[in-house]
């Protein structure tokens, strides 16, 4: 793995790639379902792929940590209010 893997551009490119593949599968699967063919497996794979890519982007870019910190702060302040 090259060192620039975790740069913002690299992460965004990987997210875009992941979401493109996921949406292709989703669209293909939904279209197959509408034509009466079995497209559910493709839809499910697309959904899982999109979720996984979004989750990995959030974790690697630090957005998940920031969200978690914000949630903790909010939780603490709510507790403080009630005490």
């Amino acid at each position, binding site marked *: 793995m*090259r060192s620039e893997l975790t740069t913002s551009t690299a992460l965004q490119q990987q997210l875009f790639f*992941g979401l493109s*593949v996921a949406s292709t599968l989703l669209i293909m699967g939904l279209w197959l379902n509408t034509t009466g063919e079995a497209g559910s497996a493709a839809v499910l794979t697309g959904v899982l792929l999109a979720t996984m890519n979004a989750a990995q982007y959030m974790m690697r870019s630090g957005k998940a940590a920031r969200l978690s910190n914000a949630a903790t702060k909010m939780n603490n302040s709510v507790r403080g209010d009630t005490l």
Partner: protein
Amino acid sequence: MSIDIVVAFFLLGVIARLLKSPFTLPEALYKSLTIILMLAIGLKGGVALAKHASANIITQSLWVVSLGVILPLIAFVLAYAIGRLRRIDAASLAAHYGSVSVGTYAVAVAVLENRGIAYEAYFPLFVVLLEMPAIAVGLALANSPNNSANKSTDKREVLHEVFFNQGMVLMTGGLLIGYACAQQMPRISPLFIDLFPAVLALFLLEMGMVAADRIRALKDSISFLITFAIAMPLIGALFGAAIANVISLSPGGVILLAVLGASASYIAVPAAMRAALPEADHGMSITASLGVTFPFNVIVGIPLYITLVEIFLA
């Protein structure tokens, strides 16, 4: 949604591993199954070649080889530019995705025969032809002025692996025997033809367990590798189907070439890459091809390609 009986064995293997069942298939049996599968595919192709040999097959073969050159180039660009893999790892991964999986091909053939879809009987010739170019392209892509792996590359060993690996020897050998002795095939067909679906089912049972083990090995680059291992079959199937249309194959042939384009090697190429590029991350490549692409093709891909080809060629 009905599931093909041989694919059900693959799922049984995955479930057995997920449930941490201690069940294993003896290694000698797995190796025997692989040998029987490769010989059976070669023999079937040889017999068909003896019946249908024509000059047209040479033109078709050249187009099929071009598929084996195009796909590793696309895979390399994706792995190197988007996945940010090291050049040597991207080249090794590209070689896996330019080559073909005999197991996936066997599953596709079983599904087509089960559904009564006809295809060109000499297809095993294309399987043999698609084994080689990707390895050569992968090695060329790995070559760069700064690549220290070149120093350790023993060209003779690599060439030996490219042309005389297990898959090449058994399938080419089976093809030649089938071609030369087509009349005597009934003598050996009980094992190689009649038992083919049962042998494939046992092979897939083992593959299911291996795939379930491999997927756990993906760590750092799990998101990109899984995406790549699902994107490449879709791209490969598209190119395979396009080339099959250009060379005017039957709908069954279009499906099979799409499946060949979609599949990734996990037997021949890993052995060749291990010899040629010892510094590459081979675990990553085989995990992607066997842990993600193979199950994707068996469970989602093959039914999807069949449906799409049937819709577009109807």
